[in-house]
């Protein structure tokens, strides 16, 4: 392994400039096939609409809370497109759009945020781990799962998502090290959106770029323009192939931006000014991809309208799905603590049931 392979490019990989014009192709990186790009656009439109819809639903009290990924759609969609259906995805609370792009049921994806019983979807069936809140803890789970797949003779890859703030946690360090030492087929994908709630990257790390962490573990690394779908998809595809071919883990950092506040409950004006947000708005990943595809004649106004209409229908479905009130039966609280209820849980459940029957609780 040469040192060069372990260090990222000096500048983030980029295929398309903020204004949608194609830049000089970055050395050693393949531009994704056109059909993949068109498909990516479709899903980005859908993802963007889903995200704004979810944020709207918090105002109507339909969702307890929602962490938006608006502005990060290039990362969300590329992460999914880079994977096969039998690969695993380890998302955080912020990656609902990726789950939608992977085809999960929106109502299920939002189950937890509706305040209902946990996680909603079936992780085993969808090969998507429960969205993880304790920061960085999922990255080491990803390594264990990748090893389990290898042991079962599967050639699956695991893609673990993490934010810039999460990279400061000890578990991220331990995960990178375990993956490298065990040559696990894991791609660690950092969505560096500039903030950990209110804390800017400068207070989080003094590294030239987070992608420079890879070499300290012997992990191949790259950094990309996180708002350029072509760049993110190209690099993640390379990373996934690298991992699948048995050459060990790969670390990718995407430079992007969180357009909304941390969640609907957060007040971003307390720690960042509007100009910054406006500057990043000009680098919007969706507009950028649309202009690029238009320029290359890969889509036309008609295609755009279709995609947007499709997204509207989807948003409509989400609204209706979430209109139904969550009905949670407290008796189920005791059903999944253990495979079988312990004597203590049987006792406690009996007390609750008695209360419910007496109409007390």
């Amino acid at each position: 392994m040469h040192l060069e392979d372990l260090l990222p490019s000096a500048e983030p990989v980029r295929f398309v400039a903020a204004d949608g014009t194609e830049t000089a192709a970055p050395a050693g990186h393949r531009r994704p096939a056109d059909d993949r790009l068109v498909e990516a656009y479709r899903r980005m439109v859908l993802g963007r609409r889903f995200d704004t819809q979810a944020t709207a639903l918090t105002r109507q009290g339909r969702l307890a809370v929602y962490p938006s990924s608006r502005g990060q759609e290039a990362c969300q969609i590329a992460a999914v497109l880079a994977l096969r259906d039998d690969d695993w995805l380890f998302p955080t609370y912020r990656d609902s759009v990726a789950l939608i792009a992977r085809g999960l049921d929106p109502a299920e994806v939002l189950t937890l945020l509706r305040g209902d019983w946990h996680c909603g979807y079936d992780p085993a069936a969808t090969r998507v781990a429960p969205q993880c809140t304790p920061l960085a803890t999922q990255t080491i789970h990803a390594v264990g799962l990748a090893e389990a797949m290898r042991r079962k003779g599967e050639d699956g890859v695991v893609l673990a998502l993490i934010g810039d703030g999460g990279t400061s946690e000890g578990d991220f360090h331990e995960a990178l090290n375990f993956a490298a030492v065990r040559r696990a087929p894991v791609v660690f994908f950092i969505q560096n959106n500039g903030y950990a709630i209110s804390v800017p990257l400068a207070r989080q790390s003094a590294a030239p770029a987070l992608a420079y962490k890879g070499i300290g573990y012997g992990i191949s690394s790259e950094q990309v323009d996180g708002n350029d779908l072509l760049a993110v998809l190209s690099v993640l595809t390379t990373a996934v192939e690298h991992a699948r071919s048995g050459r060990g883990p790969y670390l990718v950092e995407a430079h992007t931006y969180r357009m909304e506040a941390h969640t609907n409950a957060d007040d971003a004006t307390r720690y960042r000014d509007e100009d910054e947000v406006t500057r990043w708005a000009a680098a919007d990943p969706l507009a950028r991809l649309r202009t690029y595809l238009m320029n290359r004649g890969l889509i036309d106004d008609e295609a755009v309208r279709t995609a947007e209409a499709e997204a509207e229908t989807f948003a409509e479905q989400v609204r209706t799905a979430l209109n139904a009130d969550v009905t949670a039966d407290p008796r189920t609280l005791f059903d999944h603590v253990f495979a079988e209820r312990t004597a203590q849980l049987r006792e406690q459940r009996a007390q609750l049931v008695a209360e419910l029957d007496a109409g007390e609780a």
Partner: protein
Amino acid sequence: MTEMTMAQALNAALCDAMGDDESVLVFGEDVGPLGGVFRITDGLTRKFGEERCFDTPLAESGIVGFAVGLAMGGMRPVVEMQFDAFAYPAFEQIASHVAKMRNRTRSALTMPMVIRVPFAGGIGGVEHHCDSSEAYYAHTPGLKVVTPATVEDAYWLLRDAIADPDPVVFMEPKRLYWSKDRVDLTTRSAAPMGEAAVRRSGTDVTLAAYGPTVPLALQAAEAAAAEGISLEVVDLRTLVPFDDETLMRSVRRTGRCVVVQEAQGFAGVAAEIAARVQERCFHSLAAPVLRVTGYDIPYPPPKMEHPHLPTVDRILDAVDRLQFDDEPDLRHTGTAA
């Protein structure tokens, strides 16, 4: 007398402590410009500057370990753990260093630090945001554990904790952050840290509660009074060191005791209290010491937290089971088991 919330009282305590003592430093995740997700550190960076109140990298073990080093160097760190479950990464630093440093250096190095932990539920938080973790700390020798239940206590107990020469895990009941009271913080009437307080006197049963369950115990006492049962409510305030005197004096008078805790019951602080009470007041007890606690399950999702949490009804049910008719209650003597 000014009206304020518990959150504002905590903020005032931090502000006054920083004003009085240069060595008091406040840091953690989002405690700077944002003022903390619960706004407990609101305005501190503006008032005292980045040097005194600042955001750290996102790493709880690092935050506490960094505080350990600062304390070794003579500072008084006050760190915020954003939510109860997010203090777990710091458990080794807390159990192996914060709690033991004085002991393993024969007091050559001390740990005058405060670890603030917003804890427990009742606020509709999603998973990992509503754990009750006080027992982990209370069981660890070398740590003091404090939890306020009133606006006034929030101010004075935090001041005491910061002034204390030893490490204090300061458990803040999230659901009481927005509770209001009219208080005068210029003169102190609150008892010192280490002492429990009788919040309501009664004659029939002693309710022992702390943090989030104190207001609940008071409501229960009110309801019981209507039924002609007189409940005494003891707010423990400090779990470590434990004030045996106040609680035992009460139980020896009432002869009956119910402990109310929000945390899952098994091996929790309520178990310690029940064990102590019967050890020390056995011959004054007319009935077993009963516990009203959360179930032994992971904290439930928002839509289901109500049935998990102690309620006035459960407290009154427990009181009813205290055999005022001197007939043994078979429901809990386990003959059924």
